[in-house]
């Protein structure tokens, strides 16, 4: 290959600049180099410029290479099967926005399936095709709930990418240690060094990782610098002790009760109260017990006739005497003295005492009764709401299934659907303390009795895919709702959940619902068609989910 011109250092550079200057000013004001002034000057300038332009282009040479990024770390996971990779591309292509708010028709909402797809891929330990990472990161950027699963699946190369694109910074923030590899936790020196010198996020990550493995070592590490940490940091570090909380942590937490920061004190008290054997729990138990007693003489108060029972012992009633003051000891143990606006001080203090007292206290205090019997006791003077709500919070905090069961009651009980002593939000939290099967069973019973209108929150805490009895209950309830003649969008929340959570093997049971039914009298016009459409979408989505999982092959383990 012959080169007639050298681009940069040749005399051409100066010549070209001269041409540009002349062209800017105009040949009327300035004569181009090497030509005579006059009417031909512009043409001569253009001739020379054309020659220079082509010469400059023909002589272009590559530039020096900039500093290369370090190669992305290897992803040792096996690649996705091709069909699953195609599915992922399809799910990611279905970005939200655009025609938002339109009727959904019978087509599945692909973006909503992404969380499940990611969970399935993560369970099998597949690595993504690298070219989908940008779309995956963009999706995770828009939806914070997707981030943990998306980033786990995306793997080390996504963090490598995120360092190059500011749009994806969130990936560095939400990944422990900002993507920097944590030292081997056995390596004491490096652990100490990172703890002493690391960024806040790195230190939190280190502490949580260590706490996961060796709770005591994590606590000791925290103790080395506890006195010098800032209040906000102390709060975050203290919070990481929630994992693996045990009786050994009590001395440290007890000392944190005297912390300068009120939030740190409150968190320490909360953690201690979750340890039923702690001194704080015992102090709280003493205080709470002083407020609650059984009265065998008093009637149960308004509206309830307990005197019909012949047995004098069958009418015991709980009486509540709320504390009269919030003393320094209570405040030190985490009781907040100032009540929120609109709440009586005494009932506010009382609620906090009961919430922090170990639930085991009550059987002892209330005549050896079981939780179920205790919950069934009438409560005098309208204290029932306050007392039961506090027990609910205690059951959730202490993860006490027996008390949760007692407080939830029978799902078919009439007050379970209405505004009873225990609200739906509290029920959802109580359900969280039960095993998955028991939870599903209870919600199924609830739906069978009360229908779907109140069930959304409860369904949200059930394990996915829904257990068979729960799936059946939801489908039956949807069927009943359809027959009642209302529009399907009154149930769009439950429908959406069903699309994501119903076991795909249930789709066969739905076939009968796909047809457009005869419109019953007093039904909303056209509802039948919309229901058929909604059920079609449900079935399509279920089939798609089944295909999604099948493409990935069997799960490990």
């Amino acid at each position: 290959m012959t080169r007639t011109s050298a681009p940069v250092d040749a005399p051409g550079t100066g010549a070209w600049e001269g041409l540009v200057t002349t062209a800017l000013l105009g040949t009327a004001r300035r004569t181009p180099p090497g030509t005579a002034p006059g009417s031909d000057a512009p043409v001569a300038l253009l001739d020379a410029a054309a020659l220079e332009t082509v010469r400059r282009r023909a002589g272009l040479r590559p530039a020096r290479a900039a500093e290369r990024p370090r190669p992305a770390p290897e992803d040792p996971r096996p690649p996705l099967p091709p069909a699953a990779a195609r599915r992922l591309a399809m799910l990611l292509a279905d970005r939200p926005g655009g025609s938002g708010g339109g009727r959904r028709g019978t087509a599945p909402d692909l973006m909503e399936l992404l969380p499940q797809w990611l969970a399935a891929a993560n369970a099998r330990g597949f690595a993504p095709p690298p070219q989908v990472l940008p779309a995956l990161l963009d999706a995770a950027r828009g939806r914070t709930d997707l981030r943990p699963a998306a980033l786990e699946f995306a793997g080390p190369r996504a963090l490598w990418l995120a360092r190059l694109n500011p749009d994806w910074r969130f990936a560095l923030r939400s990944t422990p240690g900002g993507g920097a590899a944590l030292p081997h936790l056995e390596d004491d020196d490096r652990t100490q060094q990172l703890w002493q010198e690391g960024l806040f996020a790195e230190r939190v990550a280190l502490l949580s990782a260590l706490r996961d493995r060796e709770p005591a070592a994590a606590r000791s590490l925290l103790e080395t610098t506890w006195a010098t940490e800032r209040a906000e940091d102390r709060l975050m570090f203290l919070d990481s002790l929630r994992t693996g909380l045990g009786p050994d942590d009590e001395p440290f937490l007890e000392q944190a009760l005297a912390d300068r920061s009120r939030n740190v004190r409150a968190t320490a008290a909360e953690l201690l109260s979750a340890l039923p054997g702690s001194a704080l729990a015992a102090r709280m138990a003493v205080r709470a017990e002083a407020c609650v007693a059984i009265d065998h003489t008093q009637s149960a108060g308004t509206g309830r006739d307990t005197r019909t029972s012949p047995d004098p012992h069958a009418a015991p009633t709980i009486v509540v005497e709320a504390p009269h003051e919030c003393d320094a000891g209570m405040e030190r143990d985490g009781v907040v003295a100032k009540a929120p606006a609109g709440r009586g001080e005494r009932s506010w203090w009382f609620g906090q005492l009961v919430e922090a007292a170990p639930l085991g206290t009550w059987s002892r205090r209330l005549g050896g009764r079981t939780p179920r019997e205790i919950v069934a006791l009438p409560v005098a003077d309208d204290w029932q709401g306050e007392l039961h709500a506090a027990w609910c919070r205690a059951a959730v905090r202490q993860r006490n299934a027996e008390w949760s069961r007692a407080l939830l009651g029978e799902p078919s009980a009439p007050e379970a659907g209405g505004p009873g002593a225990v609200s739906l939000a509290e029920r959802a939290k109580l359900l969280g303390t039960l095993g998955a099967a028991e939870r599903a069973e209870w919600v199924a019973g609830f739906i069978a009795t009360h229908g779907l209108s109140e069930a959304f929150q409860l369904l949200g805490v059930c394990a996915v895919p829904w257990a068979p009895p729960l799936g059946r209950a939801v489908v039956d309830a949807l069927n009943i709702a359809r027959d009642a003649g209302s529009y399907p969008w009154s149930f769009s929340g439950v429908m959406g959940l069903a699309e994501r959570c119903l076991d795909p093997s249930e789709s066969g049971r739905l076939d009968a619902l796909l047809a457009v039914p005869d419109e019953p009298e007093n039904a909303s016009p056209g509802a039948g068609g919309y229901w058929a459409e909604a059920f079609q979408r449900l079935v399509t989505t279920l089939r798609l989910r089944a295909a999604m999982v099948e493409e990935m092959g069997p799960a490990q383990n």
Partner: protein
Amino acid sequence: MTQQGVRWTADQVLALAPDAASRKAGSKLGAAGPWSEAGSSDEGTVWGLCKGSGSKPYQTIVDIADASGPAYKCSCPSRKFPCKHALGLLLLWAGGDGAVPAGEAPEWAGQWIAGRRQRAEEKKAGESPGSSSASADPEAARRRAERRAERVTAGAVELEQRLADLLRSGLASAEQSGYGLWEETAARMVDAQAQGLAARVRELGAIPSTGPGWPVRLLEQCALLHLLGQGWLRRERLPDGLAATVRSRIGLPASADGPPVRDRWLVLAQYDTTDPRLTTRRIWLHGAESHRTVLLLSYGAAGRAPELALPVGLTLEAEVSAYPGAGQPRVALGEQFAPPAPAAIRPPGLTTSQAAARYGDALRDDPWLESIPVTLERVVPVPDGDSWQLADADEDAALPLTPAARSRPGLWRLVALSGGAPVRVFGECGHQGFTPLTAWPEGAGDAVALC
């Protein structure tokens, strides 16, 4: 040949979509739910009934056997082409999970296919005795061409005059005069039937607003326009190849009368550019045996996708014929001998220095060339300040990316694919830098479209 073995990928199907909305709508229909009686035949036909909002399902048929790209028929009222049902059906077929079994076409599909096949046969039969209708009167055609050449000459003279005026008063004055002057000149070039000149003139109008360094770019474009005008006015004295290049750059019609070249053509890239009047689709092909890289151009009305669609990564056994002009990559697709099928061919690659040198050489045949198609081997995308470059893995040399390529999402797919390791990249290399269009990983792996 059997179609069952060569199902397309979802990406390849989605590349057929006329716009993003269709892509989305099509993806949603790419699941078994709304489909019934779907099937495919060994001749390369896919059909199915899609349940829509009405009571009667839509009848959708796609013929993928046709060499010039798939043909679609759907009973839906959509004006999108292909419609979402056709895309959904192809996705379902591409998914390959048994939702589209092989079988006999039902009557409603069979009729249309038979009709198509028959028309194709007739067309072939009609063409073979020599295309008789076109050149019925060679004398009249010659006179028409002469009249047109006179008009173009008049236009070129006028343009030269305007350029001379501009240079006399100085480019600084162009900044104030703005678009109006150029739009008017462009309109005069359209009157002179010199579309190529008109398009270049229109671009001149935008240059003063392109930021620092605009005088250099404006002078370059004026000079090249002057070169083109001079080329036309002195075309008799140019070598044949260069004269043909000038004619095609001016915008005179030409027919692809080069000798047909049969090869296995790998589809390297397909992308659309739109302006207010026209959608232009460029498809780069690479011949497995001839090692030629050629360009198929097709056009659609504004906002509509051109009909020809060849998904990246497929190979078609076909003949192409070149358009006239030295150094011109444009060809027309001739006879196809087999439907497009996936293949593991990759084009051989160059270093960045070789690529830059090749562009310089290509300017000899066509000094107006903005860029040439090039495959780079073992290059790494490297961030360089606000920009990016493709650096040789084994040498200290790099080509910068063009400003347009920096802001495309394809850049990040390329960076992700590379992960800091060398990749093979096909793209357009020119004086503004490199525009990556398709990439292959160093190891095994399919082509990844970047545009």
